[in-house]
């Protein structure tokens, strides 16, 4: 037996989800589809009856929708950022992880970008944000962070989709050569006539490494610009110079959590135990531990500076979150984002796949609460008493929020059904035993171990 046997097993394992469909797939799609449908109905209801049926009213104009917007844009940092960094440092263990991660980016950005639209009273006028020579002779104000958002998110979305699609082309060719009938015709179109000549491979790899370099600063800029939406507004606790890195750190933090959950689900339901090893989870768990410490530092910093400055409006918001009405949410956030990951991921014995997944669920909940606690307590208690108010989420907002989580799962399930979720050719490139073909850095090694 030569290299043919592991090749075929690799291909069969990774293509099986595409070629075989069980009733569980339809059941899952059906259940998730019902949730997504409910969310669409809720949105349509809100459009029909107007914003009065949501809980957003003076002075808290940003509620669940903007929380979800920031949260999902944050989750999107899992993918392209992590995969680009791992590509750039040539970490061998990245190979089965990168595509799982990049898909999260593409879909969570789509979902996140929906929320400014859902948040519009008249979503059909969203195109007014785009700069184009209109009959109104108006142009968007390029000094506004909201316009920066529009450009940043669209650039990130475009770049991430291209970055995701490029290495998929050789895999489409593999599916094309394996299937028949209509499926073969579809993947033949998607494979674009890929032949795998040295020049083609060379250009593909060149394009990938260039885009990996380009996408990292964009990912950082996206969440920095999202944080400008807050920090450039005169609202207590928002006007802070740390908001840029604070948001980016939180985004990467929640992104890793989302990635670990997605990978655990793939491993379990697509039987990818031979490809997603415990070492992948442990490495991502270590990254998440670092981000938990960083997040903890930023929260401490934010609190300390506010306390030391002792401005009356800031302190009002400060105590509202720490002791008063928002205290249960606040301490849940601290537990989920800091205590839980520190205990589970900090102790080697607990840093198993199950442990990482539990910590990740905690972080997802905690990061959602963090976004909520940045937005609502500040908006409900600004500088003057005329602008004090409360916020109570209404059913339409809760349904739409739940629906977006279902939409994320649905899109991910469908993607894993139609595209090999682990890059076949990148896995195969490791399999070749010839040392001349594989630089030593791509050998499987845990994080923290030095390269040979």
């Amino acid at each position, binding site marked *: 037996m030569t290299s043919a046997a592991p090749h075929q097993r690799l291909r069969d394992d990774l293509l099986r989800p595409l070629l075989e469909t069980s009733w569980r797939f339809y059941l899952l799609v059906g259940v998730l589809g019902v949730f997504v449908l409910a969310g669409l109905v809720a949105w349509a209801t809100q459009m029909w009856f107007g914003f009065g049926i949501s809980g957003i009213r003076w002075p808290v104009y940003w509620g669940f929708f903007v929380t979800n917007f920031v949260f999902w844009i944050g989750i999107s940092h899992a993918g392209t950022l992590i995969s680009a960094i791992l590509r750039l440092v040539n970490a061998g263990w990245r190979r089965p992880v990168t595509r799982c991660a990049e898909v999260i980016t593409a879909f969570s950005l789509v979902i996140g970008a929906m929320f400014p639209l859902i948040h519009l009273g008249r979503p059909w006028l969203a195109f007014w944000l785009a700069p184009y020579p209109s009959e109104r002779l108006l142009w968007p104000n390029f*000094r506004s962070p909201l316009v920066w958002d529009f450009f940043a998110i*669209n*650039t990130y979305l475009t770049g991430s989709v*291209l970055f995701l699609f490029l290495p998929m082309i050789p895999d489409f060719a593999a599916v094309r050569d394996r299937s028949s009938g209509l499926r073969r015709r579809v993947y033949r179109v998607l494979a674009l*006539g890929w032949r795998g000549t040295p020049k083609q*491979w060379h250009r593909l790899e060149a394009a990938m490494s260039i885009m990996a370099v380009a996408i990292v600063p964009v990912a950082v800029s996206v969440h920095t610009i999202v944080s400008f939406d807050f920090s450039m507004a005169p609202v207590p606790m928002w006007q802070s110079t740390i908001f840029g890195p604070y948001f980016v750190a939180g985004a990467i933090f929640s992104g890793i959590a989302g990635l670990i959950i997605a990978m655990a689900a793939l491993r379990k339901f697509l039987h990818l135990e031979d490809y997603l090893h415990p070492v992948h989870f442990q490495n991502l768990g270590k990254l998440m531990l670092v981000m938990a410490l960083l997040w903890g530092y930023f929260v401490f910093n934010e609190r300390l500076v506010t306390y030391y400055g002792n401005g009356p409006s800031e302190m009002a918001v400060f105590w509202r979150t720490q002791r008063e009405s928002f205290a249960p949410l606040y301490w849940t956030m601290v537990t989920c984002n800091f205590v839980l990951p520190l205990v589970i991921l900090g102790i080697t014995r607990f840093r198993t796949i199950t442990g990482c997944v539990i910590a990740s669920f905690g972080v997802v909940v905690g990061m959602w609460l963090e976004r909520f606690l940045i937005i609502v307590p500040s908006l409900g208690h600004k500088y003057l008493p005329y602008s004090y108010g409360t916020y109570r989420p209404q059913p339409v907002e809760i349904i739409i929020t739940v629906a977006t989580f279902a939409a994320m799962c649905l899109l991910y399930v469908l993607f894993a059904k139609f595209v090999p979720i682990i890059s076949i050719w990148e896995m195969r490139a490791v399999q070749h035993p010839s040392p001349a*073909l594989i630089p030593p850095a791509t050998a499987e090694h845990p994080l923290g171990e030095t390269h040979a």
Partner: protein
Amino acid sequence: MSHAEDAPTLYGLMAEFDNPTALVRAAEQARLAGYREMDAYSPIPIHDLTEAIGARRTRLPILVFIGGMLGGLGGFGLEYWSQVIAYPLNIGGRPLNSWPQFVPVMFETTVLGAALAAFVGMWALNKLPQPYHPVFNVPAFARASTDRFFLCIEAADPRFDREATGQFLQGLHPVGVTDVEP
């Protein structure tokens, strides 16, 4: 010497190998034997092969640079024209050309231009999408995306001769040698 009746009906001769090392060696041998119009096909990127086949470095980085510059200048041009000329508006007493605030959008359009150039450039240089290519006429080529490695010496090469080239390829110990219909 040449087979005049065969030449127009043949795209080339294709040898099939079952491991990358054999393909790299075969490509080197073919190059030493003077063949230039040839190409290799593999399911994984093989860096030695790029040199063995005589491919030069790609021009993609230059395209990306041009794309990024155009994106950045275009972004600033859009901002300057719309904020200063087309629709001048006093925002908090700032100068109309308040360029520091134009930087974020400029940065994003720069990267957008570069990313689009990398993607479109990769397609264009690789001539994708390519709906038809003669090598797909070989049934065994279906394994080129999985576990087989191919070397095709094309009939366009001046040294190509059906008999001699076939014998040369057989001498490289391939799994098989096939005619490629045009």
